[in-house]
């Protein structure tokens, strides 16, 4: 059995089904790339099998010392990335409100000017020689995580004739089962571009959009160094196994 990094007994109940009215649908025509990349046939539903209930484990030993410090992990010795220095922190919870410990969280973003370090990004804003844009960490016993970075800039993209992404950080999250796998984006409190964005606008429910907006968190700032934003992520929860017959023994 793989290491959990936790002394709690592993859980093996099936996950709550995904509320697909809450997530964006596959086809959101205002986000043009979705038009040819969205399935048109119905999804095949079935209750989780072991293939969905299980998932990979990542150990703390797999991480480097600066993996959660984007200000320094690509910078030359003694230098640091340019931009508004921020701490992003929060907890990974499940739908029951329980912290999800020991899970891999990966994040990526543009630099302070809205430019990605990627050969397909041709935006004229310059690269920052001290900023790569990737980071990762593993949640603690209570599901908590934190990383340090610079606040990304908004950037234009070829969708509508004048579409700009709000400032955002991409998040990739593992849970304990592969069925919990999630990629999302974090936005920043007060950004007026959020409500104009066709990618955000694919989410049908305003309350769901608000769940992706991180609040400024003055309590967690470092005076004279960095502001802080708090961003909690919720993954699918596991069903309690009330009266459930589980012949395969999980």
């Amino acid at each position, binding site marked *: 059995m793989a290491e959990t990094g936790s002394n709690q007994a592993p859980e093996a109940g099936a996950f709550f089904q995904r509320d697909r009215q809450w997530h964006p649908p596959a086809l959101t025509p205002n986000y043009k790339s979705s038009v040819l*990349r969205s399935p048109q046939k119905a999804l095949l539903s079935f209750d989780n099998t072991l293939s969905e209930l299980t998932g990979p484990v990542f150990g703390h030993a797999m991480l480097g010392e600066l993996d959660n410090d984007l200000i320094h992990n690509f910078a030359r010795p003694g230098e640091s990335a340019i931009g508004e220095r921020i701490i992003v922190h929060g907890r990974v919870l499940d739908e*029951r409100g329980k912290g999800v410990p020991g899970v891999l969280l990966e*994040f990526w973003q543009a630099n302070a000017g809205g430019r990605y370090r990627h050969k397909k990004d041709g935006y004229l804003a310059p690269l920052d020689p001290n900023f790569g*844009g990737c980071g990762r960490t593993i949640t603690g016993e209570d599901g908590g995580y934190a990383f340090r970075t610079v606040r990304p800039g908004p950037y234009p993209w070829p969708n509508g004739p004048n579409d700009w992404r709000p400032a955002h950080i991409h998040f990739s999250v593992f849970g304990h089962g592969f069925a919990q796998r999630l990629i999302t984006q974090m936005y920043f409190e007060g950004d007026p571009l959020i409500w104009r964005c066709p990618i955000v606008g694919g989410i049908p429910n305003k309350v769901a959009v608000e769940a992706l907006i991180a609040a400024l968190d003055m309590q967690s700032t470092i005076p004279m160094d960095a502001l802080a934003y708090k961003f909690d992520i919720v993954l699918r929860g596991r069903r309690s196994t009330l009266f459930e017959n589980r012949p395969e023994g999980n």
Partner: protein
Amino acid sequence: MTQSPDRLKESPSQTAGPYVHIGLTPNFCGIGGVYASDFGATMVQDLTKGERIELRIRVLDGTGTPLKDALVEIWQADAEGLYNSPAEMRGGADPTFQGWGRQPTDMETGVCLFRTIKPGRVPFRDGRLMAPHITLWIVARGINVGLNTRLYFSDEEKANAEDPILARIEHRLRVPTLIAERQGSTYVFDIHLQGEKETVFFDS
């Protein structure tokens, strides 16, 4: 007013976007020196038990054009049919096999290659054995919620015929969309996101 069952809502998904490589395969896209290696790039070690196979996967859009900016993750059991996961209660999986892999589609050809082992059979909820399969998760620009599907093997006809998930597919013409074609030690699998040959995707 009735009482509320009081659950949090899952964080809504958003697309991985065109620059997903920066975060998930930085070495692949030329961001060196941050991570020693990209997670999931190598799945098999010398001591790993099982038959070595290669998966040659493409993801095609509604016009039949291969995506050159997709990212595919796979999750599978070991050669004995055990998952390397704390939620695996049936015994210890091969410690030299994590069972998880991650590969981008090639930026020129759209081909995505995994070197892995052929998985053993895993029981369904009622104890019947499922056919050998690999679980896939696909993200890309234009995909708002990661897509789940499975890869089954063309040389497992008998097992496929009794697989409880494949049996759930009402339109039998669509079953072959989940079966990878064996060519030597390689299995070729095209995932069609949309249209006539659309792959069966799961909500599970």
